[in-house]
């Protein structure tokens, strides 16, 4: 297994380099202008100068190489320096990946935005999984019961109604129609500056997370519960279930040990594959609730033609996707003894 993991990790290096190059090419092809948001009074010659100062005058392979050096060499060195307070080679004038719009290092921006995304989107993923697995198990065990029918209906809704609709609907109901002093009122805007210091502020943090988490959890739970149900149904009719019953095992053991253990194998894989989306942030939901997470950062970057920001962020998503693909494969090997990787 270790050998396999190392081999796969080695293989990801050329893959990721290739992906980063493709992203770079695509962004270069995009018809946008980093000076487009500047005041109209700035004359074209000055704009041209600004573009040149951003390095846009150089040929594409040079720019790509410079980004590679900045991202793969300078940024890791910078992280080491910050962690240990050292000053490795060239720390005085080291060039980091700079955002064109804010003139601050992209990695710092990402670190700033990460907690909001992880709290809101990550929490919704966890909540979604915790809701989905029991629903899937019960729906399959009691197939076509009223519980299953209700579960199917809710999943259909969660699946087919987009989050920008459910999000706005929630805002209309819980932030607008309900009076502000009611216990059922929830804030429609996520306040990043809010600090949790005591129980009351913790309560407020929960309240401001509630709506975006609910909207995203509904969507996640809809997907995962369907998957869980299908996987359980596949396994419930297997011969080994009859064997377990013939051994006189209790129904609870048959279901939650024998069937669930088998059914979780594909579900865990799907859950692992979904994790990069958590980091990617639910772009639309973050917009609706004004959560200034990674999704929102990406949107702002795209709108402002902030190429280094978009390039770096997109590449980090690509790394996560490749990484979690590998993790899913390894989990599969751990969970299913029939799978061997050597």
């Amino acid at each position, binding site marked *: 297994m270790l050998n396999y993991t190392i081999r796969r990790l080695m293989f990801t290096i050329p893959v990721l380099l290739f992906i980063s190059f493709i992203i770079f090419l695509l962004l270069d092809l995009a018809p946008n202008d980093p000076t487009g948001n500047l005041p109209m009074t700035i004359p074209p010659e000055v704009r041209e100068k600004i573009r040149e100062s951003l390095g846009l005058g150089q040929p594409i392979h040079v720019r790509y190489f410079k980004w590679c050096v900045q991202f793969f060499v300078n940024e890791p060195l910078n992280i080491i320096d910050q962690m240990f307070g050292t000053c490795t080679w060239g720390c005085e004038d080291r060039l980091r990946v700079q955002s064109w719009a804010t003139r601050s290092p992209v990695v710092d921006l990402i670190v700033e935005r990460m907690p909001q995304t992880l709290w809101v989107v990550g929490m919704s993923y966890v909540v979604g999984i915790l809701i989905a697995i029991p629903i899937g198990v019960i729906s399959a065990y009691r197939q076509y019961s009223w519980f299953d029918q209700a579960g199917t209906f809710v999943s259909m809704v969660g699946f087919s109604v987009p989050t920008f609709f459910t999000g706005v609907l929630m805002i209309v109901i819980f932030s607008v129609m309900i009076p502000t002093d009611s216990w059922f009122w929830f804030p429609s805007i996520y306040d990043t500056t809010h600090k949790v210091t005591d129980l009351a502020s913790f309560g407020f943090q929960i309240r401001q997370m509630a709506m975006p988490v609910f909207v995203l959890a509904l969507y996640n739970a809809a997907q995962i519960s369907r998957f869980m149900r299908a996987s359980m149904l596949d396994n419930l009719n297997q011969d*080994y279930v009859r064997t377990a019953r013939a*051994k006189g095992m209790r129904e609870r053991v048959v279901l939650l040990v024998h069937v669930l253990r*088998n059914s979780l194998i594909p579900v865990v894989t799907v859950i692992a594959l979904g994790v990069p989306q958590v980091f990617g942030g639910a772009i639309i939901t973050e917009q609706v609730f004004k959560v200034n997470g990674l999704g929102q950062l990406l949107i702002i970057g795209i709108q402002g033609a902030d190429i280094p920001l978009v390039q770096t962020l997109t590449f980090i998503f690509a790394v996560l996707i490749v990484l979690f693909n590998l993790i899913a494969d390894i989990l599969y090997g751990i969970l299913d003894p029939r799978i061997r990787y050597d």
Partner: protein
Amino acid sequence: MPDGAQPVLDVRDLNTVFQTRGGEVHAVNHVSFDLKKGELLGVVGESGSGKSVTMMSLIGLLPSPPAEVRRGEVLFDGRDLLKMDADSLRDIRGARIGFVFQDPMTSLNPVFTVGFQLREPLMRHMGMNKRQANARAVELLELVGIPDAKQRLKDYPHQFSGGMRQRVMIAIALACDPEVLIADEPTTALDVTIQAQILELVKELRHKLGMAIVWITHDLGVIAGIADRVMVMYGGQVVEQAPVRELFKNPQHPYTAALLETIPHVRGDRAERLKVIEGQPPILGAIPTACPFRHRCPVAFDRCKQENPARMPVGDGHDAACFYDLAKGEPRDA
């Protein structure tokens, strides 16, 4: 065969119905039989004749719905299994009545070790802790002839061959020293040499442990080799029942006779084609009011269309459900 011994299992007038989209299917009709202590009862019949469904009905292993055991009595140790609640039935299942199923490739849970699956019934029924169960599991694997038993407990089912897996299944079924072992076509999925090994194993274990066995198969050759008594099923009912030698020598039901005819002979004319019984077995939408075999029967006459024959004694410990006396070549007197 221990003659005149007490029956450990006494089944009376069992009826099982499946609810399907096309209506009810009466899979088991008026099945009665008993199983004596230490006896090996062979159950033969073609696919869909109700052999497996009968045995699964006894012990509540059929999924309900769609299956429903509508009528009957299954006396085991003086109690009616069909009237028992699910919990008490579970205490008997796997402890006092063991099961071996047809396909050893799929009957074991692929994600648990063989040791885990062997320990389960021991810990559930015998109140053993893990260490005791492990020790017993090693004994059991040795009993069914798996070498290097202690090591193999840690292996997963896919690390065993088909024959070895069936041995494991037998070990699981025997874990709690059951009085009855129900083997549902245990050798059908195995190739012939492995089949012979498993048969030898069962014969040997039977003498060692002295349990009664119900052996379901559609292979008459297997039955001839191990059974004491044979029950032939057709269309969800028992059509003939006799001691094994008597049945092979003197079949009294035309279906049994036809089945015996289909056995290919090793000696004799090579050009001879395999014999078949023409036609298809019936799918029973209702309890049959006529003989279910009449369409395929070479000696069927008027009465067979009007009444469903009950089993009647035709010899010593031999009964058959037929209006026609094959030996005399004429209808029996009513």
